[in-house]
């Protein structure tokens, strides 16, 4: 595909300028529609289908060799042919042979990412066959000679005006094609003639049904129906992972796929075909013969099942989940970075969006995945969007870890080995190790504050940080507090006798060293509500190294945190967490990093701060001790990972109960995402994403106090909107 070269600041800036508008409008539209349709069907029902679909896929991939055999037997029994292609070249060769044997001069295709993957069009072109993409989006990118920018909407990055210019130039039309209707009518007529003339129709298959040898095709335009019914030879190309056992297993996917993809309850056309079908072929060379031209040609059907790395992915415990993907694009639509920059940045040779990392690592290799993998910030908004519950952020993390390990050790590593006490193999880039070990910098920063802050902010130091570490000089750096939250808390007298609950307040690195005021407010609020509060001596959760793909280091940190906090839980303490990204670690990622029982203990006994306050109030704690709102306006941005965990409403509920008038943002992510927004090449993208949040709050910010739950979100809002926005706990703090 026509990927923009290296992903650097210039390339991103150019894409933001040229493709950003089209991508933003279209992906956000799909994303909103998805939320609306799911709400209509009900989240419980939707979750039931997700679980069913996940189960079908897990089972099918587990039994794949057997299902391939069953598919082959069934298709052959129906009179078709199955070819299992080992790799892209093998698949191309087979399809070319079919086309040659048919003496075919032209081929019409319906949309198929798998044929993009194996670069089929180029191969057919090279052997002198005319190939026409009949999906209008694919037709546009075919004419423009560029790669798809989105799994579902290949030309999503192009506005109507773009396409008008392209078509009028390429086809030299007499009439203006200056509306969507005229463009569509032109493409329909043009492609209609190609379909009538075509000797072979090539489709993909969204699903393959092993028991009956059927394929299922999901389309809105009707082009796949024509490609599969007009020519007498039909070739369907599908990845091996598309096989499910039987038609009954298709039901949850029929419910989910369009809701997830475009926010439709069902596609316009869900074709479930068991070729060769009984539909007569149409012989447009005999235009006046009754019976559709009276052709007595037998229908021919070939199913090409493509391996191309999939069987290896199946054996790979971390990449296997990728094979459950049904290519709906919901991960892309729900991704704040993707919404800004699209698949020409956030994508590889074929696939785009969050799940592309798994696909490209599996079918192309780590080099291709590396080109865009850093665009996943781990915000986790795709986790609930995925209709088959693939842990897409984890796949991105694992691939990042593998990329790190593949690097040659260099000079930089020798230089910093002593300063970055991690578990990483030599080779992990210096910058990743700096951000991954931020805890060490923070300890040093607090110990030497305010000197450390003054030095770090000095011009020459910022210049060095930018050139050596790629930390953008346009970003403010965190300012370390000399007195950490832990120091402050350990000097306090026990304030509560006969406590209602005992709380271990988790001092995440930021709350402990930088934003200590929100930690102090949390302590005072919890004490006012009758809790004993301790701030344990415990290190970072591992979030920072994990987000850099440093899994071993994250694991070591997780084990230490699990041990310390586990002791507190055993002694009857509840763990309360201020920073949502750390709570998400305990709840989600620790499942993969620590022993099962340690994960369960932490997950069951850890609470987001406002979730916990809400629980205390619901159980009789006296809310009048907290600072009430008296109708004061608040503009609240909840953290992305907090929303994924479903914990956004507690802050709203508590503030509402205390008399605040709360306006909540509905953007997927603030764009800062930990270290992401600090990185030079991503600074402008990060700001572009943040603009959406800023726009939502722009009018409100004059009259409302801006609050946010996450550290990164606060930094982003500080840059974009109001100086020094606060954590909502500081609003209700009785000691403020």
């Amino acid at each position, binding site marked *: 595909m026509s990927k923009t070269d290296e992903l650097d600041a210039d390339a991103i800036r150019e894409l933001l300028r040229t493709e950003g508008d089209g991508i933003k409008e279209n992906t956000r539209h799909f994303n909103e529609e998805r939320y609306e349709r799911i709400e209509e069907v009900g989240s419980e029902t939707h979750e039931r289908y997700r679980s069913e679909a996940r189960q079908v896929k897990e089972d099918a991939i587990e039994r794949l060799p057997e299902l391939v055999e069953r598919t082959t037997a069934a298709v052959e029994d129906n009179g078709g042919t199955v070819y299992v292609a080992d790799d892209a070249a093998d698949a191309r060769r087979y399809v070319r042979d079919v086309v040659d044997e048919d003496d075919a001069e032209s081929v019409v295709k319906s949309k198929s990412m798998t044929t993009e993957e194996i670069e089929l069009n180029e191969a057919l072109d090279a052997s002198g066959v005319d190939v026409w993409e009949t999906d209008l989006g694919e037709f546009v990118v075919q004419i423009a000679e560029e790669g798809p920018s989105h799994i579902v909407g290949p030309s999503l990055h192009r506005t109507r005006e773009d396409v008008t210019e392209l078509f009028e130039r390429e086809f030299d039309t007499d009439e203006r094609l200056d509306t969507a209707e005229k463009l569509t009518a032109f493409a329909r007529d043009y492609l209609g003639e190609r379909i009538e003339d075509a000797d072979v129709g090539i489709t993909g298959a969204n699903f393959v049904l092993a028991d009956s040898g059927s394929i299922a095709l999901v389309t809105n335009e009707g082009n796949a129906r024509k490609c599969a019914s007009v020519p007498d030879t039909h070739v369907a190309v599908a990845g091996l992972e598309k096989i499910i056992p039987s038609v009954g297993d298709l039901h949850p996917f029929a419910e989910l796929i369009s809701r997830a993809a475009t926010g439709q309850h*069902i596609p316009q056309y869900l074709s479930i075909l068991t070729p060769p079908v009984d539909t007569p072929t149409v012989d447009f060379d005999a235009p006046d013969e009754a019976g559709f031209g009276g052709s007595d040609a037998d229908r021919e059907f070939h199913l090409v099942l493509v391996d191309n790395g999939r069987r290896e992915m199946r054996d790979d415990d971390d990449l296997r989940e990728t094979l459950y993907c049904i290519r709906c694009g919901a991960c892309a639509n729900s991704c704040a970075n993707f919404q800004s920059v699209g698949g020409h940045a956030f994508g590889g040779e074929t696939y785009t969006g969050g799940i592309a990392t798994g696909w490209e690592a599996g079918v192309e290799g780590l080099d291709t995945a590396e080109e865009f993998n850093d665009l996943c910030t781990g915000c986790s908004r795709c986790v609930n969007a995925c209709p088959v519950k693939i842990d897409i952020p984890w796949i991105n993390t694992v691939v990042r870890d593998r990329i790190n390990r593949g690097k040659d050790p260099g000079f930089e590593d020798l230089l910093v080995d002593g300063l970055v006490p991690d578990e990483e193999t030599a080779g992990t880039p210096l910058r990743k190790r700096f951000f991954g070990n931020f805890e060490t910098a923070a300890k040093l920063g607090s110990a030497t504050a305010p000197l450390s802050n003054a030095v770090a902010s000095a011009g020459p130091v910022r210049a060095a940080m930018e050139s050596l570490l790629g930390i953008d000089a346009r970003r403010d750096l965190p300012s370390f507090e000399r007195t950490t939250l832990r120091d402050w808390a350990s000097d306090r007298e026990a304030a509560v006798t006969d406590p209602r609950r005992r709380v271990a307040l988790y001092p995440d690195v930021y709350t402990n060293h930088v934003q200590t005021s929100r930690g102090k407010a949390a302590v005072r609020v919890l004490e006012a509500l009758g809790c004993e509060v301790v701030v344990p001596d415990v290190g970072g959760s591992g979030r920072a190294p994990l987000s850099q793909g440093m899994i071993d280091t994250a694991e070591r940190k997780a084990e230490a945190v699990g041990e310390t906090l586990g002791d507190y839980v055993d002694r009857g303490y509840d763990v309360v967490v201020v920073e949502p990204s750390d709570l998400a670690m305990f709840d989600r990622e620790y499942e993969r990093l620590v022993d099962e029982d340690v994960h369960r203990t932490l997950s069951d006994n850890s609470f987001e701060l406002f979730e916990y306050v809400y629980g205390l109030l619901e159980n009789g704690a006296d809310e009048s001790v907290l600072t009430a709102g008296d109708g004061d306006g608040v503009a609240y941005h909840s953290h992305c990972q907090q929303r994924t965990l479903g914990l956004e409403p507690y802050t709203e509920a508590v503030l509402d109960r205390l008399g605040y008038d709360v306006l909540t943002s509905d953007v997927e992510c603030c764009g800062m995402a930990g270290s992401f927004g600090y990185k030079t090449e991503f600074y402008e993208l990060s700001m572009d994403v943040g603009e959406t949040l800023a726009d939502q709050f722009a009018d409100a910010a004059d009259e409302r106090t801006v609050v946010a739950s996450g550290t990164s979100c606060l930094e982003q809002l500080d840059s974009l909107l109001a100086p020094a926005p606060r954590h909502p706990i500081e609003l209700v703090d009785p000691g403020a």
Partner: protein
Amino acid sequence: MSSVAEFQQSLSRSDTESTVTTPEEFASTLADVVDRPAVGAALPFDAVDLDDAPVTLNPTPTQLREAKTGVTAARLGVASLGTVAIQSRAAGDELVSLHPETHVVVVRERDLRPDLEAAFDWLDDRFDDGERSFVLATGASATGDMGALVEGVHGPEDVHVLVLADDE
């Protein structure tokens, strides 16, 4: 709500016209909604047929290309979605339902199912019987690829569903 009423409501949500008719009135109802020239695929029903209807069965390619309306049966209707199941038959249902601008589709009241889950139960039974190729069609063909939603791309621009009421 009866399943017919729900079906009609779902159809109107997907911008699809519908008319309830009876076997007795079918011929005249059909003549009213068919824009000529029209092609058709013989209906697999006992109570009604297209023998005297203003449609050409087994058309030539030119007739298929120039027809304004295509008339076919649907073997199933899904009340909650307004979806119909077009079977791939030798009579050419797939072609007739797809090529003309308007698709007139005849579905029997008794063939309505409440939702997609019930439709898949029905499909499961059909598959057991050896009937294994259907298109579940909902509304007109559509695309957003040209910058705005446009109906009538490679498939019909308008769909009109005739619901054949069951005998009392």
